[in-house]
């Protein structure tokens, strides 16, 4: 093979690999992207049930109900709107009433979600950033009042 032929073979191989990777990426993207929203956005955008979402907000005080088999139900709120969340499993260490969490799962009916995972903040200094932004949009966030603004 000539030098030129070899170079062409190399370029062809490179294009094949990169092309395959690009194809895979696009396919995977259409399938595995999850949008983040606040409870208000779910209402405003009229998201249809069946959609897979991450919802961030505060756990409304007094709404956490634990029942048998580690079923939990609670209400996520961003001050303006609310969303009922049900979940089966262990809650994260830092799940508390009145604190920010992110729930990922599927909308079962308008205003209701079946969560597959619940994320809480790592420590008291930090609140999920998405939650902070969502609360800011609703005007419920006051800089400096919460340690999370550090």
């Amino acid at each position, binding site marked *: *093979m000539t*030098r030129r032929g*070899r170079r062409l*073979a*190399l370029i062809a*191989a*490179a294009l094949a*690999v*990169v092309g395959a*990777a690009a194809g*895979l*990426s696009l*396919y*995977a*993207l259409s*399938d*595995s*992207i*999850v*949008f*983040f*929203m606040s409870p208000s956005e779910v209402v405003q955008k009229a998201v249809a049930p069946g959609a897979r979402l*991450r919802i961030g907000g505060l756990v409304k005080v007094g709404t956490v109900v634990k029942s048998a*088999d*580690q079923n939990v139900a609670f209400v996520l709120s961003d001050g303006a709107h609310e969303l009922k969340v049900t979940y*089966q*499993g*262990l*809650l994260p*260490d*830092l799940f508390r009433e009145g604190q920010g969490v992110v729930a*990922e799962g599927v909308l079962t009916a308008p205003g209701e979600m079946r969560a597959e995972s619940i994320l809480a903040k*790592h*420590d*008291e200094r*930090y609140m*999920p*950033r*998405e939650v902070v*932004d969502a609360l800011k949009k609703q005007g419920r966030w006051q800089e400096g009042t919460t340690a999370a603004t*550090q």
Partner: protein
Amino acid sequence: MIVEIGHFALVLALAAALAQTVVPFWGARAGDVGLMTVGRNAALIQLALIAVAFAALVNAHLTSDFSVLNVAENSNVAMPTIYKISGVWGNHEGSMLLWVLILAIFGALVALFGRGLPARLRADALAVQGLISLAFLAFILLTSNPFERLAPAPFEGRDLNPILQDPGLAIHPPMLYLGYVGFSIVYSFAAAALIEGRIEAAWARFVRPFTLVAWSFLTLGIAAGSFWAYYTLGWGGFWFWDPVENASLMPWLAGTAFLHSVAVMEKRDALKIWTIFLAILAFSFSLLGTFLVRSGVLTSVHAFANDPRRGVFILAILAMFICGSFALFAWRAPMLKQGGLFAPVSREGALVVNNLLLTTACATVLFGTLYPLALEQLTGEKITVGAPFFNLTCGTLLLTACLVAPFGFSLAWKRGDLLGVVQRLALAIIVGVVAALISAAWLSGAPIFAPLAMGLALFVILATLIEVGARAWRPGLTAGVALKRSLGLPLSFFGGALAHLGLGVTLLGLSGLGFGAETVATLHKGVPVAVGPYSVTLNSVGEQVGPNYKETVASVAVRSGDTVVAEIAPARRQFASRAMTTTQAGLKTLGFGQVYVSIADPAADGAVPARLYWKPLVTLIWLGAAAMALGGALSLADRRLRFGVAARASARTLPQPAE
């Protein structure tokens, strides 16, 4: 006082870095040997000064000097000594200081061992290394001063984030940094070669030991981080495709590609431009990782504090080094002479394919990590690109790379005989295919990853062993002769073999995931719950007091049939100083698998909600990574690759005969 000495030493180090940048570079242009030597001394002085600064900070943490802001925010009198020390780098300022300390160590290594290198190449490399130091020292002094005082000093510190109070996390950052920063040397030498406009095989021989050190530590650092996540986060997972994990994976992938291509360059004088490109890429990803983790763009346990000035500063450093080097590359790379020819089917050819797959895998990780950030900036929409994306794209490419690896290892240089290799590896191929088919049938209906990984893992392991055997022994040789022959093989050959074995072993560990079991259950005293082939019974729940925490400990018996095989103690720790709870998983290693129990807060009646896992082969994931790193170390011990040897040999720059 000691703290002020530390601060002052850091300022002096900045001056030394400035001297190291300007003087040798000027000397190299003017052809003045005296000026070029200044770089060497400046690098050594800089190391000494940064070491003083670092020691001062360690001292402040050890003596719990809460008049230092950094100590007050991240330490506590009650903490065990090991965490007082690891607290030094368990925060933004201290970890940046560790970063520049390691940078200076690598710079000093070049200064000490680069004696026989072409004087101008060494001067330029030291100058570039000095420039990196300069940028990061300025960053520390201007935005992240670890020596800032606090008046009045509080009586007690805030404590290190409890989640970081763990032996795994004490060693994870230094190892990761040795990896990240080790690639800076490779970068500096690539830039120096581009400035010089010429490059030869001696370059590869000098850079390779640094690459091996960086790569081995990066491998260990990633493995340590993943093991930590596995046993402290309580979810049983060890890799989450979290942006911060991706930030460490990208330099690893680029570094692995570089490690292979630099071998081609050293042996065959080929792929020069590509190797330089990868050298720049590996360190660029290290910088990108530093930016992602340190700038507060991402929220995670790694993002200690969000100060927008820091993000902008690191972004500027990032832009300067990445854009600068790629501009230099575009300008100078065409001047580099192309070397050795090879047929597409050859070891070089296989390594090119390996490089293609690794860099493309790296690109998919980059895309998946940055796309959500870019989208949010552009449209305000927030999305998560999760594990399914990375598994499908990066996972597929890396599995393909595993398939190619044994062929590359067995093919001859220059012109290979693919049919011959297939014949030689026939046993491994058959075993791999059969194992994949059997496990696919066993797990029918489950995702195909586990069977595929199982087959590939066995193929990689067996093929590597066959190749080692074939090098030492052929029909007709006695055992004694074979032993003598194998002793004559270069250590770097065994290093490569061990690293490939490690790859196979890690892959085997990953395939075990498909065969595991998991249950979420409420444990009642004396009632067994089945998980995989074992059953788990709660014996009792008790309270204990540690140095700076209280813990709730469950005592759990693991039974196989009716015999108790282990007692494990999963716990929850409450840290008073931060009002925070962490989970300590209870683990029992059985064979290569583990029974994993993590508990939540006990209910009023004493029942304990728990997650139970049976994870077969899971320990192999980290054992394999350790084997890879050990392979790197073994190659490093090869006589030809020791630090400085390349320099002595650089007089004869002919390519070495193939192994």
